[in-house]
């Protein structure tokens, strides 16, 4: 199987529980011994059919959610049937079971959770919103990730990933953009993750978040100097700006804007602009303009195409007039 960075990465019940404790108001009721169980699929399943005895196509690798309907159904069953149906669910070794709407799972269920080492969790949230929020959390936890040597910024509403060899001026460019009022996401080491909807989201490595190295000055903490609005937790990557020494660029520079190149990360193609770096060249103004131009292109207005149409129309008229 080709690893192009697009397949979901398994996570554990422990990670889901720790991330969801506050976000999803989760508590652990039983089955602590199973916290290291892997969750291989990010979707959430409501096991109504399984509880009714139908196990074909049962997604046993997913988190199982017991909500209002499931609870009511279980209670409607005669006691011996109830026990065997629930036991069967735990027997299939699902990663974990979550009870919603503050329903307290009874002693039988807790015992089964302990027996099969399947963590039993409880949430204060209502089933519907819980399923949505848990799916989003699982998408984040299982997203393929990679760290790249680049600085990530938000400029003119666009997510810009600035790449280049060490010392070429990524951090200095970022500083100039911060002073213009734009926001830093990560300096020098950016973590990219592929989101469930196929977009690429950039964030900083938590340990060094919002710290930046300025050669000559040293390490600075950006929000302390420039304020809370000078940084941002994460941002979708819209454009890659690759800084290259003038000498290394020769053929690659796009003179008209026609040949949009792409960089691919985790299977996602992102438009790329290669920028020549030379003394006297103002990178900050340039990157800002690049962001603004791509913002405009998104809304359909493409400068080189418009100019080209205008010239072609005029040239045709001139030739016709001469006749």
């Amino acid at each position, binding site marked *: 199987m080709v690893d192009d960075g697009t397949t979901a990465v398994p996570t554990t019940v422990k990670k889901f529980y720790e991330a969801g404790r506050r976000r999803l108001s989760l508590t652990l009721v039983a089955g602590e011994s199973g916290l290291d169980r892997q969750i291989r699929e990010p979707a959430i399943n409501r096991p109504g059919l399984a509880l009714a005895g139908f196990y074909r196509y049962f997604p046993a690798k997913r988190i199982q959610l017991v909500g209002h309907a499931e609870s009511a159904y279980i209670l409607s069953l005669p006691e011996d049937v109830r026990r065997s149906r629930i036991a069967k669910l735990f027997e299939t070794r699902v990663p974990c079971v979550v009870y919603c709407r503050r329903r307290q799972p009874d002693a039988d269920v807790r015992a089964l959770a302990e027996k099969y080492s399947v963590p039993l969790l409880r949430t204060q949230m209502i089933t519907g919103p819980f399923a949505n929020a848990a799916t989003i959390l699982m998408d984040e936890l299982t997203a393929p990730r990679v*760290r790249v*040597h680049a600085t990530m910024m938000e400029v003119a509403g666009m997510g810009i990933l600035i790449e280049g*060899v*060490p*010392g070429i001026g990524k951090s200095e460019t970022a500083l100039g953009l911060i002073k213009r009022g734009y926001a830093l996401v990560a*300096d*020098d*080491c950016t973590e990219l993750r592929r989101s469930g909807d196929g977009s690429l989201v950039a964030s900083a*490595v938590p*340990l*060094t978040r919002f*710290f*930046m*190295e300025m050669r000559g000055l040293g*390490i600075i903490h950006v929000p302390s100097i420039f304020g809370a609005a000078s940084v941002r937790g994460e941002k979708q990557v819209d454009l890659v700006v690759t800084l290259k020494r003038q000498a290394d660029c020769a053929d690659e520079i796009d003179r008209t804007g026609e040949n949009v190149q792409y960089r691919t990360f985790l299977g996602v193609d992102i438009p790329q602009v290669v920028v020549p770096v030379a003394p006297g060249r103002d990178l900050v103004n340039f990157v800002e303009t690049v962001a603004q131009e791509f913002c405009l292109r998104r809304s359909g207005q493409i400068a080189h195409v418009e100019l080209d149409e205008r010239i072609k129309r005029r040239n045709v008229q001139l030739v016709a007039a001469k006749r």
Partner: protein
Amino acid sequence: MADEVQEMEMTLLNKYGMHVRPAGLFAKIASRHSSAITVIKDGNSVSGKSIMALLTLEAVCGSVLKVRAEGPDAEAALQDLAALVERKFDLPDEQ
């Protein structure tokens, strides 16, 4: 002359591992060489010339780093870096 790629494993021996001062010294020495330096740990690979990037490796005392150098002075770069790590970055309270 073709760029050679050389690799060497280095184990951090100093008490606090790859914190700011060692990262600064490592990056400084790496930057003196023209070869591209990459440091790999736990599947993450970062530029050895970047302090911030080195810190993200979260390397502690005992961590094994794989250091790769690519360029004309690859061997010299690795020797210098290995020596620095072996000397525990010359930090007095971490010897």
